[in-house]
């Protein structure tokens, strides 16, 4: 071999060595140095999490009667992965066939474009089951099972849906569930992220998952929601599942036991509805119509704060809202003509309490020593009027209702007869001696009874309003146009003393204030949830024999303790008992017509609601508690408030008494199920309200 090729052969060898060295260097760089970055990329693209929906927990009443249940329904859905494997024309044709097929089974036509939109919703993972139509009939399920090759990616599954065995009963306590909206979904996703960072468990949400929208369903969402199952799978490039890495079974949510007695609740609603009907179409002596747009009643246990009844009418049908609310339904629910049935007025309604507020003023007076020597213990009401001396205000003379003349009125009589002049006197003295008693002596007492603040019940409620001089100054400062007057006058204190003016209370607050008085001065937090429990065996219905490890039992929570000096408590109690039992009591007639066993105390209230330009009938309020004298303490405090309905003694008193009576005597009619209602069954009718005459309030 000559020299040139030999040299060139050596050059060739060197080139080969360099090339191999290059490969080895790159290999070392990839596998030795940069491995972790690429390994993470590998994991990210092949690991997928598929979520499986979990059934929600049930809602039961205090005795274990199921108020909200789950039933199985059939859903037709799609998996995007399988559909995307089709060629565009084939995919289009498949959607057309699907739309035609579904349309033939449903009343309203199913549009192809809607189906495509749903399948392409990027919030769903490619392997996720995307629900297209619910409540699929059996025939459709069989059809898809037999025609899998014609409908690739389309499958039929079962899922649980909420059912409400008692229909509208307690609907504005229970609330309803619906598909999660984008705002809620974003919030839950953020919460999940935060929980993951902290290493806490979180019940994951998928788009279109159901979420509690109102009532208990919303406020106990975190407990009621089941823990979705999780399938962690490894997928191929084309998205097929190669193997399952882990499978966590879905877990049913916790069951919520309410303090509500469904029989008492349904009876309460029934009485309210009946009386609402009695009132409508009638009017008071001044011609103001009794519209009774809403009516509500509360029954709670003064010893624990447990709410047994929180009845509010009008009601709605939660079953109609389960799969999302249709536009007509939404319009109906928000039409002012229907008085917003989604609200529970027992907790969210805010009304002027009228004379029922005298409990607060009386307590403020005895606490301040206003009726203790050397002060007079009563006021001589000689003409049914209370006139402010040297007054330059718009209104200087304040009158009793119906201009009644009370004579000498002490604490007990003032309550029994609901004498306004006595309370004007107290209100005047509080304001006149505000340097001694502070500007807000009455307001402070109201606060102790729980007014003007949320009670803390586990469901949406309103705050009410207790006006103060400070609030008024603030409102005027912030918006002088809407609140031209920033000063607090003596007259305001007089109005406040009898629960008029700007005072607003919720029926729950009012009832709990009287419960506080009835039990001797301990204010408990009202509770509507008695227990949250996880079932030991999720397949069996909840009950005492099927309680798992995770149980939360609500204990009574003391919020305040009120002290009464001397014998003032007994004197006030005599007054409240007298309201019902003595001949001069404002609710004597009503109680006589519909008595309860044992000794009961109560108070009527009639609050002016409208204005001169917009006349409205009065708000009718009544509170009752008892039976007194038992060693165990009073069993119930109850109230009824009916706006635009007339005098408290005429309307609210008989309403509350009729609601309470079967509860006290233990012969509550059983609540009617949806089926029974559909067959036309009703609860026993109640006597009509006598709205023809009136008792001075």
């Amino acid at each position, binding site marked *: *071999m000559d020299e040139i090729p030999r040299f060139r052969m050596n*050059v060739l060898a060197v080139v080969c060595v360099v090339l191999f060295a290059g490969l080895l260097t790159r290999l070392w760089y990839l*596998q030795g140095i940069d491995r972790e970055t690429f390994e993470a990329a590998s994991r990210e693209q*092949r690991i997928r999490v598929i979520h499986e929906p979990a059934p929600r927990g049930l809602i039961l009443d205090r005795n274990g009667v199921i108020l909200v249940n789950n039933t199985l329904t059939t859903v037709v859905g799609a998996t995007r992965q399988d559909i995307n494997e089709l060629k565009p024309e084939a995919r289009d044709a498949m959607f057309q066939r699907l739309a035609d097929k579904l349309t033939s089974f449903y009343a309203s036509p199913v549009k192809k474009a809607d189906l495509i939109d749903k399948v392409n919703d990027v919030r769903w993972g490619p392997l996720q089951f995307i629900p297209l139509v619910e409540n699929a009939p059996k025939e459709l399920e069989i059809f898809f099972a037999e025609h899998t090759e014609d409908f690739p990616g389309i499958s039929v599954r079962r899922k649980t849906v909420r059912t409400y065995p008692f229909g509208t009963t307690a609907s504005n306590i229970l609330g309803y569930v619906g598909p999660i909206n984008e705002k809620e979904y974003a919030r839950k996703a953020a919460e999940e992220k935060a929980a993951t960072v902290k290493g806490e468990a979180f019940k994951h949400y998928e788009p279109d998952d159901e979420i509690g929208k109102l009532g208990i369903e919303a406020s106990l969402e975190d407990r009621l929601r089941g823990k979705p199952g999780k399938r962690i799978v490894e997928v191929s490039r*084309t998205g097929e599942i*190669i193997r399952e890495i882990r499978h966590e079974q879905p877990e049913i949510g916790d069951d919520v036991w309410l303090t509500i007695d469904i029989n008492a609740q349904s009876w309460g609603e029934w009485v309210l509805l009946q009386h609402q009907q009695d009132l409508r179409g009638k009017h008071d002596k001044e011609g103001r119509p009794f519209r009774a747009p809403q009516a509500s009643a509360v029954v709670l246990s003064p010893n624990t704060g447990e709410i047994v009844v929180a009845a509010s009418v009008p009601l709605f049908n939660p079953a109609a809202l389960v799969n999302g609310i249709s536009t007509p339904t939404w319009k109906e629910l928000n039409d002012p003509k229907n008085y917003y049935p989604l609200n529970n007025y027992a907790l969210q309604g805010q009304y002027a309490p009228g004379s029922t507020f005298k409990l607060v003023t009386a307590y403020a007076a005895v606490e301040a020593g206003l009726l203790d020597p050397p002060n007079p213990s009563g006021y001589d009401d000689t003409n049914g009027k209370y006139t402010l001396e040297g007054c330059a205000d718009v209104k200087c003379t304040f009158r009793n209702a119906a201009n009644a003349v009370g004579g000498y009125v002490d604490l007990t009589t003032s309550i029994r007869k609901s004498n306004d002049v006595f309370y004007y006197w107290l209100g005047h003295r509080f304001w006149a001696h505000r340097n001694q008693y502070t500007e807000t002596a009455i307001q402070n007492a109201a606060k102790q009874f729980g007014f003007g603040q949320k009670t803390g019940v586990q469901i949406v409620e309103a705050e009410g309003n207790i006006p103060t001089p400070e609030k008024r100054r603030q409102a005027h400062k912030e918006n002088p146009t809407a609140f031209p007057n920033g000063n607090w006058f003596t007259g305001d204190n007089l109005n406040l003393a009898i629960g008029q003016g700007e005072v607003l209370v919720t029926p729950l607050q009012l009832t709990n204030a009287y419960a506080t008085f009835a039990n001797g001065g301990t204010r408990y937090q009202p509770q509507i949830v008695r227990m949250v429990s996880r079932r030991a065996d999720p397949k069996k219905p909840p009950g005492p024999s099927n309680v798992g490890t995770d149980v939360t039992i609500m204990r009574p929570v003391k919020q305040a303790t009120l002290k009464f000096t001397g014998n003032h408590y007994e004197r006030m109690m005599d007054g409240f008992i007298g309201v019902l039992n003595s001949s001069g009591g404002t609710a004597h007639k009503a109680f006589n017509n519909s008595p309860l066993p044992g000794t009961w105390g109560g108070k009527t209230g009639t609050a002016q609601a409208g204005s001169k330009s917009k006349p409205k009938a009065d708000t009718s309020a009544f509170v009752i508690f008892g039976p007194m004298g038992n060693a165990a303490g009073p069993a119930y405090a109850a109230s009824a408030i009916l706006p635009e309905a007339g005098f408290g003694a005429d309307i609210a008193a008989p309403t509350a008494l009729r609601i309470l009576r079967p509860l006290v005597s233990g012969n509550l009619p059983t609540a009617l199920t949806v089926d029974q209602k559909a067959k036309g069954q009703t609860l026993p009718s109640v006597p009509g309200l006598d709205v023809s005459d009136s008792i001075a309030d």
Partner: protein
Amino acid sequence: MFPTNVKNFRARDMTAAWRHIDYLLIMAMVVLGLTGLALVHSATRFFPEGSYINRQALFLIAGTGVCVMFAAVDFTVWTKWAPWLYGAACAMLVAVLVLGSEVNNTKGWFVLGPFQLQPAEPGKIAVILMVARFLGRDDQTRGARSLAGALLILGLPMGLILLQPDLGSILVYLLIGAGMLFAGGIRGRYLVALVLVAVVGTVGILKSDTLQQYQKDRLTTFARETCPVTDKACYNVQQATIAISSGGMTGYGYGKGPQTRGNFVPAQQTDFIFTVAGEELGFAGSVVILSMFALMCWRIWLAAMVAPNREGQLICVGVLCMIVFHVFESVGMCMGIMPVTGIPLPLISSGGSSILTVFACCGLVQSVHMRKWS
């Protein structure tokens, strides 16, 4: 020192061809062939059509036969027949343009029932033999005329392949030609001129519209962080580097590579088979494979050095260039340091044409090595 016993002398005839079989080359081929069989199985066992292991084994057996055939016959006989083989190869390259099937935008395949034949592969043998015959003649001037002749021999099949068009194969022919011209002793200034023309031509082609965008993408794609959805070459390289890198030092273990199992790397049983080795066998396994290729290359280079004549030497150089380029391009593209051109990894990638060609070429090298004393 004349032998006294004729019988013994004959038994000790050191020039006998069979005495000079290169067993190291055979060992490297066996190791690579069996590794390839295992990797092809791992890459294809989840394919809907089933594992390719049986056909791969069939090709290896057939390849062994072809190898034996090419080794058994004296390489001078092969060069003698080279014009016929060359003619047949060119005829097939013409025929494939008319009768062939299009695969991946390239009309380079005859489909024969379950098998596909890629005439560009056996064409390499014919071109190596033809160039070796032409440049290996004793009367070669190694000047312009020799260069022109060799370029003509190379140009005809390359032109035909350009019509398919199969850029990867053209590059292989180019490198085979370059190596053989270089080792064939063509004068330096001609070679420099040739390199200049090649550089200018390459730049010109890339700037012009001669190539389709996807072809340019392939040639210019190296590893990138993110790929546009339409850039399949980029995706391919991305997935390949992920697979190789996540294998680490020892790999996920045979049959356990998640990228391989999930079929994330397109063409993982053919051009991108090295990703399977990288992911499942790790750095250790990859180094063994590359070492076997290095061993092969060394033995082929050695065969060239001991070749009895220039024809034999040039055959070995042609085969060496072919294999080195195949390995460097195929492995390099999997690791993102070479453009994506679609070239199989010799003896390992699934596919009959490639395997039979490499076996035939190694048979030729063996034939040269065996007859080093002739």
